């Protein structure tokens, strides 16, 4: 464009210097842009893109870190399908995720609603509810191992108040996963704060209007607040499921997969193959399969979200 203007102003003169000059200035700007984001480009290539491609390659090999990777075709996948622990690990993880995430979100939303009240000193409560979330995972899990102790743990002491006999929280295969889910409920502060921000973004006028129209508290919540915060619920749901599918540290520390494989979660199983038995190729396969599973879950959620997530300004 500037080139055309220049040539109209001076029709007899050719104008390559001006054009290249302008172009080079524009190029410079692009170059500076790339310069600023170059750490990310390099980091993405080195620590994300390359490992993913390399991992895909490894998943078709047998590799124990001693010799070079040996190409074995699809045999890792065949092995996985016939591995009796594959379904156990995947099933445990899916069970944990599909039960833990909804409970976590309900609790987080409930706490956010409590914190959304106009009360004096609400910040103190916000801190109290958020604090457990910043506790280091290991310290937290170790603490819960102690609290779940069948002989002298406080969980059994509390059950005792209600006359319920002592339970082997982490030693009973039927209780181990619920015990993990209960433990995870102390780490929902992040979701809670996101819900809180979502609630505070609900326009007062909407709630007021519904109130004037005679809607009670519950109806206002269900028909005004819920649709308005549905994107936030969706956001927490998607990321919560992605995170839960990768549960590792709790099981590794508290039970190491037991009792009777009840807490053998997928990543723990994969970790054992990779870093205890050094089956790198097989572990890479397992990693890609988990990625696939998570992707399917995420895509399903995006597809279903059209039915229940309301986006403001998207013509509704």
């Amino acid at each position, binding site marked *: 464009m500037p080139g055309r203007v220049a040539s109209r102003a001076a029709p007899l003169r050719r104008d390559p210097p001006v054009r290249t000059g302008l172009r080079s200035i524009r190029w410079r700007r692009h170059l500076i842009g790339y310069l600023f984001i170059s750490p990310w480009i390099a980091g993405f290539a080195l*620590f994300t893109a390359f490992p993913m491609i390399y991992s895909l390659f490894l998943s078709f090999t047998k590799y124990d870190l001693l010799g070079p990777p040996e190409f074995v075709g699809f045999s890792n996948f065949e092995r996985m399908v016939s591995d009796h622990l594959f379904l156990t690990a995947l099933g445990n993880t899916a069970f944990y995720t599909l039960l833990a995430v909804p409970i976590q979100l309900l609790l987080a939303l409930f706490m956010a609603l409590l914190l959304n009240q106009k009360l004096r000193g609400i910040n103190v409560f916000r801190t109290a509810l958020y604090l457990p979330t910043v506790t280091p995972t290991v310290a937290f899990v170790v603490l819960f191992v102690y609290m779940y102790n069948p002989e002298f743990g406080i969980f059994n002491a509390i059950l005792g108040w209600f006359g319920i006999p002592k339970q082997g929280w982490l030693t009973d295969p039927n209780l181990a996963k619920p015990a993990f889910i209960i433990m995870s409920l102390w780490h929902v502060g992040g979701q809670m704060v996101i819900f809180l921000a979502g609630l505070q973004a609900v326009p007062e006028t909407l709630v007021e209007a519904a109130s004037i129209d005679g809607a009670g508290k519950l109806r206002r919540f269900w028909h005004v607040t819920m649709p308005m915060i549905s994107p936030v619920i969706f956001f927490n749901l998607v990321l919560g499921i992605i995170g839960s599918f990768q549960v590792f540290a709790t099981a590794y520390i508290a039970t190491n997969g037991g009792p009777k494989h009840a807490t053998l979660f997928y990543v723990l199983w994969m970790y054992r193959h990779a870093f205890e038995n050094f089956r790198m190729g097989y572990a890479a396969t397992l990693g890609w399969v988990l990625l696939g599973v998570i992707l399917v879950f995420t895509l399903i959620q995006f597809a279903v979200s059209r039915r229940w997530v309301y986006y403001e300004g998207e013509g509704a």
Partner: protein
Amino acid sequence: MQRIGQISFQAREGTTRRRTLLSYGQTAGGQLVGYATLFLVAVVSLLPLLWMVSTSLKEFGREFLFPPQWIPNPVVFGNYITAFETSNLARYFGNTLMIAVLATLGTVLSSSLVAFGFARLEFFGKRVLFIILLSTLMLPGIVTLVPTFVLFKTLGWIDTPLPLIVPWWFGGGAFGGAFFVFLIRQFMLQLPRELDEAALVDGASYFRIYWRIMLPLSKPALAASAIFSFIHHWNDFLNPLIFLNSEEWRTLALYLRFFLYTEAGGGAGLTRWNLMMAASVVMLIPVLVIFFSAQRYFIRGVALTGIAGR
């Protein structure tokens, strides 16, 4: 991906407007119910941490009592000294601190550079690149576990702190790091453009604008990133577990797990829970100090991006 961004925007706007639902027509009785419920939830929420502190002050043997002793009697502060004397706790503390500080420094510096690029500069493919950046947030990091281990092994970095630090100097290119770029960019986008345009007219270079204008103005976002990053690295377990194996570089997280399984010996029944809890409190203290001194940045930061520090 765009939708995720959109949500975050809504969440951010929310922080400036305080509108409540439950407060509508809330009576004195309603307030009382509100307080009572909050109090109950807060007690349950803090119970584990209080139990941790209480156990750490118990005399040896009294942590096995049933029904449990809720308040330690006698109070034994000496457990903390014993915890330091019977192990290299100070060293593990130093290791963890060094890793967390260096990784955080790299994260804040490099992520802010990249964030500035995405917030203020124009270049080909910016949209696509940003979508790629956002989508890495949703990728399960577990998929790169094996190949990055192989990569660092080839480089000879296993059992050094380098794998835990160096990737974080690459502007969010490492897994989960894009979060910080996103957080800082969101903040920079709402700063008035007139500022850098004026500086540009005055002949300032882009780097100068970044360093002298944008960085000082983005302090809240940088602080939030620094806090998230520090706590993340301080608490991290999986990466140290994989990349470190000698006692020399052991972190607090590794030590606690090690303590649970070996040092106390003889399985869970004989574990010195009072010392274990004392070590846990030691690990918790820096996090609490940071959390309390920078709480407003912290909570705002979560709301700013809509992503919890995992």
